[in-house]
């Protein structure tokens, strides 16, 4: 055996051992993000005042989730270069070399088309158009255009993640009112403090990748105060939602408790300096990040509880 043929054989073996499994393709759909999409879309669908057939409702949530997953695959295709640099993302299927970028693109495009058409057929074309717009917004406006251009990238990207409850509502009703936009605003205002807290303790990742996160462009002191300002605006919105058609006493109690905790955390973050944070390995920032996950889950959970109790005369204010 010559050196050349031995090297070729070794390269082929390596290529085979690095071949993608089914899980690698599934991971392109960002299952953790999909779980948030599924939950918020389900709340939007069930909070709507129009009953929907359970199987159609299930399909609507499934296709919204697939649409969200498709945009995740397209995001991984476009961002493979920066994913390769960041510690948090370098083991993803595309930067790790298990899936070709072209495969991620093809999967993303195919699932985008499939999810939009199927949602339109299962529910209505208004909801399908919203799903198509959400995919376009996340992939083209956020990922391709603004993510690498402006430190407000997270604020803008948050809009894409906030659409699922609106799509769920429209899938059930076929019309648009104020309530789904309150759910949209809740997720939209929640995203910046959630991600900026993450950026505070994952700073070097974004630095290395050259993504203009607020921590990189405006510094960590400014980011801390941005978190506080957004948390105050979020608290006003979240508590105010209690007095709308999707709110009620359960939601009000949940919102008051969680927003008091959230504001306390944001205030602590704003008051801390880098020495304090380095000393305890960003304990407060990490705690705030974990609280933010619970925050969104419980707010939407409370909206769901109000909606589910309404048929028994218990949910809402009436």
């Amino acid at each position, binding site marked *: 055996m010559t050196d050349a043929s031995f090297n070729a054989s070794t390269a082929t073996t390596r290529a085979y051992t690095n*071949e993608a*499994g*089914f899980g690698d*393709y*599934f991971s392109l759909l960002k299952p953790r993000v999909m779980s948030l999409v599924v939950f918020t879309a389900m709340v939007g669908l069930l909070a709507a005042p129009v009953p929907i*057939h359970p199987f*159609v409702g299930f399909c609507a949530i499934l296709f919204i989730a697939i649409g969200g997953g498709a945009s995740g695959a397209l995001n991984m295709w476009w961002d493979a270069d920066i994913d390769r640099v960041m510690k948090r993302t370098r083991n993803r299927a595309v930067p790790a070399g298990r899936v070709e970028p072209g495969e991620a693109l093809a999967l993303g495009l195919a699932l985008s088309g499939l999810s939009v058409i199927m949602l339109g057929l*299962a529910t209505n074309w208004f909801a399908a158009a919203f799903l198509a717009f959400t995919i376009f917004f996340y992939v083209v406006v956020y990922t391709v255009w603004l993510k690498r251009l402006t430190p407000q990238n997270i604020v803008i990207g948050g809009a894409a993640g906030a659409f699922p409850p609106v799509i769920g509502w429209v899938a059930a009703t076929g019309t648009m009112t104020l309530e789904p936009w309150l759910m949209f605003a809740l997720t939209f205002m929640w995203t910046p403090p959630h991600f900026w807290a993450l950026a505070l303790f994952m700073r070097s990742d974004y630095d290395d990748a050259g993504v203009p996160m607020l921590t990189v462009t405006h510094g960590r002191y400014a980011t801390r105060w941005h978190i506080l300002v957004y948390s105050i605006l979020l608290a006003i919105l979240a508590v105010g939602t209690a007095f709308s058609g999707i709110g009620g006493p359960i939601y009000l109690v949940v919102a008051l408790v969680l927003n008091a905790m959230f504001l306390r955390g944001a205030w602590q973050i704003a008051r801390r300096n880098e020495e304090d944070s380095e000393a305890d390995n960003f304990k407060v920032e990490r705690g705030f990040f974990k609280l933010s996950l619970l925050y969104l889950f419980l707010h939407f959970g409370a909206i769901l509880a109000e909606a589910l109790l309404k048929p028994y005369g218990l949910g809402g204010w009436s």
Partner: protein
Amino acid sequence: MSLRKSHELHQRRFGRNLGVGLVLAAFIVIIFGLTVVKVSGSNFGAANQEVQN
């Protein structure tokens, strides 16, 4: 001794094929379920009645 020794790669490919197969089967179930719901739904019934009248 078997000449077709199973490799980890074969298991991975089988897993991939099985995954695609299950996804396709689920898709068929969804299309069938949606068809049943839409056909037996009130809108279809109303349209059908209109045709009969």
